[in-house]
């Protein structure tokens, strides 16, 4: 299902969960909502569509948040620390999954047409995101060039670090030079014309809002509602 969602619902849903996680008044409702997400999100992914290793940094972050919120709290409380970790995990883990379904070109179309953001920054960002995919090849080319010039790393880690830094600088310089050339080509194709003439540009591809978008947003709103309202409601039920 996530594959059929547009970027705005994926982003919007992430922010909705953020409100739920950071705004949750207590652990009970948040735990319940997290349970719902834990079951629902994997079902919407589709097999083989998400590299699960991308969750590792998030899991580490949750653990470190829980640990530091125990260590530095006064008084220390494992319950509060666990809650602190859960608040983060509630929006981080689904957010990382959702993000991997966002295509930069489609994101640009939606930001330009649905949110009516200024076209030039949006287009420049999209073009740069596509440039990013060439960075890997550029990095290797640069490594070859530095190797043949005798500037590659020797075996010592210090020299490896130095050579890496110099190579990174080379990559940055090359990318900025290419960007300058690219800017000339884009300007020649009328990149700044809409801004100059006041006639808004058109967009070759529409930015539709689909049922999948609505479903995702409603689902995440529901999870957030549980996270926000669950604790008082459960407490009221228990108190009756």
């Amino acid at each position, binding site marked *: 299902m996530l594959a059929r969602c547009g970027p705005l619902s994926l982003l919007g849903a992430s922010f909705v969960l953020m409100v739920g996680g950071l705004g949750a008044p207590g652990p009970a409702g948040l735990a319940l909502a997290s349970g719902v997400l834990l079951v629902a999100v994997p079902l919407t992914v589709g097999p083989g569509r998400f590299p699960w290793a991308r969750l590792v940094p998030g899991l580490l972050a949750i653990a470190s948040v829980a640990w530091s919120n125990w260590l530095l709290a006064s008084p220390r409380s494992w319950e509060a620390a666990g809650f602190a970790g859960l608040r983060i995990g509630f929006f981080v883990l689904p957010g990382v999954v959702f993000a991997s379904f966002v295509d930069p070109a489609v994101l640009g179309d939606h930001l330009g047409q649905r949110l009516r953001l200024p076209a030039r920054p949006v287009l420049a960002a999209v073009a740069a995101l596509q440039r990013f995919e060439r960075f890997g090849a550029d990095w290797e080319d640069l490594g070859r060039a530095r190797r043949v010039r005798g500037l590659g790393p020797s075996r010592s880690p210090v020299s490896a670090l130095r050579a890496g830094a110099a190579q990174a600088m080379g990559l940055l310089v090359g990318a900025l030079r290419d960007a300058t050339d*690219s800017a000339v080509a884009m300007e020649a194709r009328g990149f700044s014309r809409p801004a100059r003439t006041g006639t808004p540009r058109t967009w070759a591809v529409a930015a539709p809002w689909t049922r999948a978008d609505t479903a995702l947003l409603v689902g995440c709103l529901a999870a957030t509602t549980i996270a926000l309202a669950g604790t008082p409601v459960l407490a009221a039920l228990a108190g009756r």
Partner: protein
Amino acid sequence: MTTDIPSRPSALARGGPWAWRGADFVVAAVFGIAMGVVFIAWDYLLNTPWTAITLAFPPAASLALGVWLLPAIGGGLIVRRPGAALFVELVAAILEYLLGNPWGPGVLVSGLLQGLGVELVLAAFRWRRFGPAVAMLAGAASATVEIVVYEWWSYAAEYSWPWKLAMLAFAVVSGLAAGLAGHALVRALARTGALSGFPPGAEETLRRAGDG
């Protein structure tokens, strides 16, 4: 080598600060992506050892915050127009967001706040001063906004107040360092000729003409 810089006025963006050119967007966005690559490298390679090192004393983790401020500081110093710092920081954050990171969509919020922090300082100088002192101030402001508006209430919600303040202090120190580093990075880039067409490139050209 750098002592004479404050006495020289900074070169200003062509056509006045508000006259964004197409090239400003294109080059700023690519700079943002390159900085985003640094974020990704940190997230996947250095984050774990860094977290392990700071386990015993978590507020010190904020010493790494400066890395996340570099795009805004560098972007502001290169383009020298309102919104440049925010734009570059957001582009870097979007790349980090798309590729997965420890904080998920949180990085977009952080990117927004960090960019705004730098914008505040550059705006206070009306986009006319871009020396090392201004860059350090921008880094400190950016770190403060990030910690006070966001991290205190999210990642450090249960910290006691002394620890929250300690975290802020470490972040500000990191922000000051990031200001210096950002300024040095922009100068180094200008020296390679990669910023011709931008104010730091013009400064470098004039400096060379003056020396030679």
